[in-house]
């Protein structure tokens, strides 16, 4: 009866489904995904026991274990007596996560000046006239096409990848912050000056403070492009990193490693996004 009325509520805009019901519904697609995958995986393995495209549950668990505990093939093997902890911190997942995370973190830090530039462009007319046109154009350059130049200028390790991410996402963030700051009502700026604000007061304590929650949301939306550029860089030229491993495994169809890696990356982004959302709510209770 209650399930019946629940299904009816799916088509009722004014419906107020119970919390238990909405909570369990929110997991349905996950469960469905897993079920469909296992179904196909089992079917494929029945036809060909050596199938490598859709590893079974047990194979996946073995893959996870190997990703966490085993060293990458390019490293020198550990001594036999290595502790569990040592094995994890020398394992491929750990090593790749640290390498990719470092690139990701540095790029995020380098995006802070981009945000401040956007702010200054919106607030100071002179900065606007210097930078706006350039960034409107620069934003249209397809960042990946710059990769060869980046490799030459920054070498093929760390910095070329970091610069790819910054060049890929930076202009978007500059322009987004610029638009957000421009949308702050003129009254606010005028009012601030009548309240004896200095120029920097207006820029940082009035305008930036007001748009900060939207800027953080914009960064959240840009996490995905950022990861995309990171993966592009790592897949093309790298000796470590999450995407490097995926590209490597693809060569010998190591789906039992690739799938856990893929889910791990999604989980990391999901957690990072959620953290930023939480920080946003803490920092800006008024929003």
């Amino acid at each position, binding site marked *: 009866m209650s399930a019946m009325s629940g299904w009816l509520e799916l088509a009722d805009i004014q419906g107020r489904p119970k919390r238990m019901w909405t909570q369990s519904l929110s997991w349905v697609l996950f469960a469905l995904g897993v079920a469909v995958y296992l179904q196909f995986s089992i079917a494929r393995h029945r036809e060909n026991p050596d199938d490598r495209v859709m590893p079974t549950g047990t194979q996946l668990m073995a893959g996870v274990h190997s990703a966490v505990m085993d060293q990458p093939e390019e490293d020198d093997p550990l001594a036999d007596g290595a502790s569990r902890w040592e094995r994890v911190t020398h394992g491929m997942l750990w090593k790749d996560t640290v390498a990719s995370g470092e690139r990701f973190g540095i790029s995020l830090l380098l995006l802070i000046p981009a945000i401040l530039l956007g702010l200054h462009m919106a607030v100071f007319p002179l900065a606007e006239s210097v930078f706006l046109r350039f960034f409107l154009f620069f934003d249209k350059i397809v960042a990946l096409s710059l990769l060869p130049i980046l490799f030459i200028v920054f070498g093929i390790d760390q910095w070329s990848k970091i610069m790819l991410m910054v060049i890929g996402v930076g202009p978007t963030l500059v322009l987004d912050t610029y638009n957000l700051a421009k949308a702050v*009502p*003129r*009254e*606010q700026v*005028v*009012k*601030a*000056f*009548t*309240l*004896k*604000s*200095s120029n*920097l*007061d207006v820029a940082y*304590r*009035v305008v930036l*403070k*007001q748009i*900060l929650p939207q800027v953080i949301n914009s960064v959240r939306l840009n996490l995905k492009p950022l990861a995309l550029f990171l993966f592009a860089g790592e897949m093309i030229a790298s000796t470590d990193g999450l995407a490097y491993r995926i590209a490597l495994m693809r060569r010998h169809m190591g789906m039992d490693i690739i799938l856990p890696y893929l889910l791990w990356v999604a989980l990391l982004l999901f957690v990072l996004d959620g953290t930023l959302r939480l920080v946003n709510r803490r920092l*800006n*209770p*008024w*929003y």
Partner: protein
Amino acid sequence: MVLRAMERRAKQRVMPVRAAAETEIALRDVTVRYKLAGGGSKTVLHRLNVEIRAGEFVAVLGETGCGKSTLLRMVLGQEFPNEGAVVVDGKPVRRIDARCGYVPQKYALFPDRSVMQNVLYGPENAFCGWMGRARPRFWRFRRELRAEATQMLLRMGLKSGDFSKYPGQLSGGMQQRVAIAQALMMRPPVLLMDEAFSALDPSTRASLQQQLKDAWQETKPTVLFVTHNTSEALLLATRVLVLRPHAEGETESNVLVDMQVPHTNEPLSVRRRTREFEQLHEHVKQLAFRESDGGTELVPTGLVQEMPRRGDAAE
């Protein structure tokens, strides 16, 4: 017109508003044109000559689009006239500064600051720059300031429970009360208000009008109060300016009426019901709206009839 102007000048000589009747705001031959999108330009203000003395409460009336806000922006220093000069407090206006307090119709408060922080923002800036705030002297000052701000907010009709709320959590009327308190805390010589009460319901509006009038009577700042409501203008102001839209090719100024309003001490709620006030209201309406047939006057409330509801009528 000429007679009226002479009458006005005579009145000015007889009853100075403040001991020192120096000119606080002067607009000299101010002309403002805006470029139109399709080429050409449109004159909004034409050869305006207005002298406002310290302590006057001037209401600026006129229909929408006649340049009231433009006038205010000139005094504020947000824009500059194409011709002529604007002088505030003896100095030409060059940039927006703390000479003028400002209460716009919307976006008056900083949404990311609580009511109390909004009110403290200006005086704190005036006391010292951002760097000086670690010193104990600042914290002592801040304690005194808080007491003063509390007084001011209570006087404007807020409850102490509201002090820590954000503007988004307050009604429009409450927000305007805070905005006025915020501006008055700076004790500006000039207070500019642009349709500050226009979005409020009648009873909130009436109570805010009284509070503004009281606050003005205490400290006597020079007020420039833009409104399109005639009775509001006549209730509050000591002087009323009526602007009219400038028609292309006209040579005279677009100040239509410039008159003193007789001063009384009654509460506004009493005042608005007196016969004298009604006559005054009628008089100004005749003067100001005889050409534009009262297009901007608000419909008097109380005339809205009950309508049957649709659902009920169907039965």
